[in-house]
């Protein structure tokens, strides 16, 4: 039946539904450590969450929840799964018991950690490279820096290493999906657009948001343009292009690895 799985991503809802948890005959009541050890969190996740949030948690009709364990914390997620959340369409799962809910959270955490082993660079050196390469002109880390590009304070928790490497050497080629603003399935973030209004005014800027009738672009000076699509004579995406420079030729492979090490270490203020 699975009719209904389009939710406001900003609400970051977990939608869980019964799609095939494994037999859990041995699973006892909440708090039973032994039972918990026998629970296959992956199977439980794929049975209850994957239907809406994707088999790997990267989103589907529901939002991506890959970073949810890192951002919400295990206790909040378990509380959410038990009690629900105002405005959420998601059913609650108190009947799962703490052991099964914890197994789901454990698996969710493992998704967020995926790719961490690929980091080989030195974060301390990377931090110096970050400062000397001018990254802070456009990015904020820990409250400091410019605001043209995305906040990187938690980028290590939010993006995989491969995607971060792409962003450094070929920005614009492998853009992430925006899960914060999209009303349902995520769409591509940071896409560069060129717009021409009917009176001939040209704007090139990064897409901040878009719907069927309007698009919001931010230009290289950080100025926001709210454009009515019906009043444009031209609107084209510029695939592969980005406001961010490539560091492929300005940093060595070692420096890029170190910078990656630093970025991957940015997990927020905790």
């Amino acid at each position, binding site marked *: *039946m*699975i*009719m*209904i*799985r*389009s*939710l*406001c991503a900003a609400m970051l809802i977990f*939608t869980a*539904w*019964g*799609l*095939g*948890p*494994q*037999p*859990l005959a041995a699973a006892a009541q909440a708090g039973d450590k032994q039972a918990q050890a026998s629970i296959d969190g992956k*199977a439980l996740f*794929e*049975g*209850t969450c*994957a*239907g809406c949030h*994707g*088999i*790997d948690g*990267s*989103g*589907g*009709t529901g939002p991506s929840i890959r970073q949810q364990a890192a951002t919400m914390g295990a206790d909040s997620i378990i509380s959410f799964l038990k009690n629900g959340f*105002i*405005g*959420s*369409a*998601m*059913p609650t*799962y108190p*009947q*799962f018991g703490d052991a099964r809910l914890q197994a789901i959270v454990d698996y969710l955490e493992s998704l967020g950690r995926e790719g961490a082993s690929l980091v080989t660079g030195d974060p301390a050196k990377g931090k110096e490279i970050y400062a000397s390469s001018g990254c802070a002109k456009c990015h904020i880390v820990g409250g400091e820096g410019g605001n043209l590009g995305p906040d990187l304070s938690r980028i290590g928790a939010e993006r995989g290493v491969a995607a971060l490497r792409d962003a450094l050497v070929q920005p614009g080629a492998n853009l992430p*999906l925006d899960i914060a603003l*999209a*009303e*349902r*399935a*995520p*769409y*591509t973030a940071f*896409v560069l657009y060129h717009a021409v209004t009917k009176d001939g005014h040209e704007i090139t800027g990064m897409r901040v948001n*878009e*719907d*069927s*009738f309007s698009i919001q672009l931010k230009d290289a000076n950080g100025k926001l343009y709210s454009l009515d699509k*019906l009043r444009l004579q031209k609107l084209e*995406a510029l695939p592969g292009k980005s406001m961010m420079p490539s560091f492929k030729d300005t940093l060595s492979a070692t420096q890029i690895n170190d910078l990656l090490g630093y970025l991957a270490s940015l997990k927020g203020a905790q």
Partner: protein
Amino acid sequence: MRSGRYIGCGVVLLCALLCLPLRSRAQHVTYDDIQHSDQHPENWLTYGGNYQSHRFSQLKQINKDNVSSLRMEWVYQLRQAGIPETSPIVVDGYLYMTEPPSTVTALDARTGRAIWRWKPDIPKNLVTIGLFPTNRGVAVLGDTVYVSTIDSYLVALDAKTGAVRWKTHVAENKEGYATTSAPLAIDGKIITGPGGGEAGLRGVIDAFDAKTGKRLWRLWTVPKEGEPGVETWEGDSWKWGGATAWNAGTYDPDTNTLYWGTGNPAPDWNGDARKGDNLYSCSLLAIDADTGKMKWYFQFSPHDTHDWDAAEPPILIDAVFNGKPRKLVVMANRNGFYYVLDRLTGEFLLGVPFIKQTWAKGLDAKGRPIPLPDIDPSANGTLLYPSITGAMNFNSPSYSPLTGLLYVTAREQGSYYFKGRPRMDPVNPTLAGGGGGQKVLTGDPMYTAMRGLEATTGKKKWEFRMVADSWTGTLATAGGLVFSADAAGNFFALDADTGAPLWHTQVGGLVRANPVTFAVDGRQYVAAAAGNSLFVFALP
């Protein structure tokens, strides 16, 4: 009472101008009224607008020339948390809507002020598998409002006070039966179907006496041992076959026939233990409304492993097909094909894709899909179009007899289908499962489009492309307009002939409900539930 006479004259004049019949606020809806709902366009008497589910209104006060000045008239903020899918019913100035999960609220349709509210006690251990607790609306007949509750009771409420007249147990929620659909009121009967097909149960369609709540008949959508069709289920797999009739159906008063779509077989994505066609899942059923006996069936997706329910309300059209006047039933199916059938016989007449589809070579002469190789879900994921949410879903298309077009929100999206280990556990349905999962293709290539399809051919006449997804039904009017919305909160009106956008507004929340239109005191309104509210628009 001279002033009263002047007001009366004014109302008559207004009604004459609007071509509306003058109706008192009688609050009594007869079967005849619903049967001729097109003659009472000030009211919206049944889920689909009329028994044929056209969602077409004869109102034309709001039209192509003036829709650009449409403005918000009132907003009703829901008292219940959740995402509404309600399609309001309007009777002589009363607007009846539901709030998640099963609350019924009667509003003054002119102002949005509440008249009464009825809130059922929902069990704390409510079982909802494969669905979330919401409700799509009520039915009305006589002076009674009918609602199917999430825990699968059918409740009759007094239309003026909300007092309970009777309450009937439809199906056992502990077994997984949970109801979100609007019931259908026909002559003396209320028809309803619970959902919950992933819980390890068999679907049912039930008819109840509108006066007493007594069950008149039950149709099981999955045959049991000894019944024809059970051979399409391997072993005992029929016992948890699913195939629930979880959305509203349609009715042909001329032949006293119900047309109802059914959902997926269970478990969803692993069909290994249920080899066969799995009747009557993913099918359209034609049912004798007096006896509940099936007249014919047509299965769109035999042995479905992609969750392609046939849940969208079927639309009945009388039209010339291949030079002959025919009585047709059409459906833009979740599997990506648009179907035209003879509704008297179930004969397949036409089936063409209305979105990109990559799972079937086509349909054979009888309408059975010719599947391409390797389309089954797999351990590493099988990429197919359409996605699991489908080319369409539960939201209703509309049909305009003026344009001959069917207006449908078509989803262009692919999905990786994964196969897992299924589990059906009727004893503890909360542990039941569908045996797999999905990963939909997202990002910019995915889009939805409102399409105007020629109803008898399925040919696309125009489309209006939306950036966001859409879960909204459509509403067509004699004013030459089609109303719908996208998931980003844009509620809009298009030119019914060309698809050109004529008006839009941002309601700030997800729209997952079918819009309706009605009139009070000669003034036309358009209503749609969005976010956590019901928004109502009118001309200044």
